[in-house]
């Protein structure tokens, strides 16, 4: 019994989603191999080899894997699937795209976004935007195909020294091609990896006003996020969205500003260790889950917060 973990990485660096997913893979039991697929991703393979409890790292590099297109990734994973009883990947936009394709080609169901491993075939996952938790059990006869809501797991430590084996990629499927990308460039940490997040909602009133959040983010080394309402209103791009259908985050500190607290937003951030809400409506549902609530007009509160942080030496 062995598991194949398809890693998330940015070529030279391994995403911490991979180390967290490894913890879930080890909880299932058996050996774990990590697959690094792409082009020029030797750095990520070396980082993966250092994770504790990895049997070996498989490195597949080819031009047609560089963009992680679903059809190509699925073909690669299928070429390796026979040797494994479980295939796992962190529930990122890349894996959410190709993993169900793998499941279908294997003719097995997929279990999406597990938040706990209760046994070799038994998992917990959220349904109805986080309003219910389901315990599910896959048939032991089926190969497991699982995506992992990795924010629910601790990262595996870096104390290993697994070998790296270069493997050949299958020939390209060529059903689709990447023709453009508009990726947000930012010096701030990524939302899913940030220790502190400050998010704005419709209460921000404009994209321009997000500068108020950015100034505080820079003091705290925080990432800037947004509610669906703020993204739909066009204040910020889609990749800022925190929520059930956006990014699911679990930072140490989450500051929600001008966010009322729609259920689908809460589903994306309620695992934060400490939640602060700043909202002028004292009835806003966000206050029901916040550890610290401030009922205030954000346009006064944010400059005050910035000043207080400066006073505190941050």
């Amino acid at each position: 019994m062995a598991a194949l973990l398809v890693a998330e990485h940015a070529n030279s660096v391994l995403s911490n989603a991979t180390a967290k997913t490894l913890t879930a893979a080890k909880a299932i039991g058996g050996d774990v191999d990590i697959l690094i697929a792409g082009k020029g991703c030797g750095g990520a393979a070396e980082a993966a080899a250092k994770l504790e409890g990895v049997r070996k790292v498989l490195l597949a590099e080819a031009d047609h894997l560089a963009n992680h297109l679903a059809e190509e990734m699925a073909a690669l994973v299928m070429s390796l699937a026979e040797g494994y009883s479980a295939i796992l990947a962190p529930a990122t936009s890349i894996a959410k795209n190709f993993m169900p394709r793998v499941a279908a080609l294997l003719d097995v169901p997929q279990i999406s976004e597990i938040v706990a491993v209760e046994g070799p075939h038994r998992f917990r996952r959220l349904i109805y935007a986080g309003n219910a938790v389901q315990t599910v059990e896959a048939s032991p006869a089926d190969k497991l195909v699982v995506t992992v809501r990795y924010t629910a797991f601790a990262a595996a430590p870096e104390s290993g020294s697994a070998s790296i084996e270069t493997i050949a990629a299958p020939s390209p499927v060529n059903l689709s091609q990447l023709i453009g990308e508009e990726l947000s460039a930012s010096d701030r940490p990524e939302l899913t990896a940030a220790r502190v997040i400050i998010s704005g909602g419709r209460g921000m009133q404009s994209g321009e006003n997000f500068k108020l959040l950015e100034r505080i983010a820079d003091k705290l080394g925080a990432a800037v996020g947004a509610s669906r309402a703020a993204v739909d209103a066009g204040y910020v791009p889609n990749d800022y969205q925190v929520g059930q259908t956006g990014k699911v985050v679990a930072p140490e500190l989450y500051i929600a500003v001008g966010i009322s607290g729609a259920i689908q937003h809460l589903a994306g951030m309620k695992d934060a260790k400490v939640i602060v809400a700043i909202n002028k409506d004292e009835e806003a549902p966000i206050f029901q889950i916040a550890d610290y609530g401030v009922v205030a007009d954000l346009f006064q509160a944010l400059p005050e917060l910035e000043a207080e942080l400066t006073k505190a030496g941050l």
Partner: protein
Amino acid sequence: MKVIVPVKRVVDYNVKIRIKPDGGGVDTANVKMSMNPFDEIAVEEAIRMKEAGKATEVIAVSIGPQKAQETLRTALAMGADRAILVKTDVAIEPMTVAKILKAIAEQEKPDLMILGKQAIDDDSNQTGQMLAALLGWPQGTFASKIVIEDGKARVTREVDGGLQTILLNLPAVVTTDLRLNEPRYASLPNIMKAKNKPLAEIDPATLGIPLEPRIKILRTEEPSARKAGRKVANMAELVAMLREEAGVF
């Protein structure tokens, strides 16, 4: 170009769900049901393609109980040309849905199938990708823009880092994200007209696809709730609390 849009009947997104006290699932008796919001976006997109002269026919398909007819009538009222109901009372898994849709695709031979990226009940986010795999078609998931030109689909996708545009050979499967469009409300005359549009029923037994779920649902429970904390009066107090009590900086 023929477009198929699968639609799912789910608990309305505004309803606060009730979990059965025995852990046996979510209570859907006497609860308002609606079309899955992502599927509504898919229907809207297909209709816009027809209005733009890109699509010739839009077919809505639902798999579910007799009442899923209502969801299909909504799609017809929005502007779909005809509908197919695959009637079953079994709660079926995404993989089974994909197999049934594949069978329908083989009969209808569409050029494009547009699905919601996920249903807001089970939040699986699987069916479109599985369908594409079973058909051997390319996929464009989480679409925020679809352009059909020169026999291909140019799909802009919402990804973790921002946006990505891919080019798909047709036939293809596309799944919708929230910002693809804003679905219309069906007008009263169109709701009346929809009653006369063709709605065919298929018995899934004739497709030879096993419907029994392969994943056992053992329990459904309330998530552990966070407790409301306390209100603080001002930012000075907040910073002090975060530093001294919460210890986050």
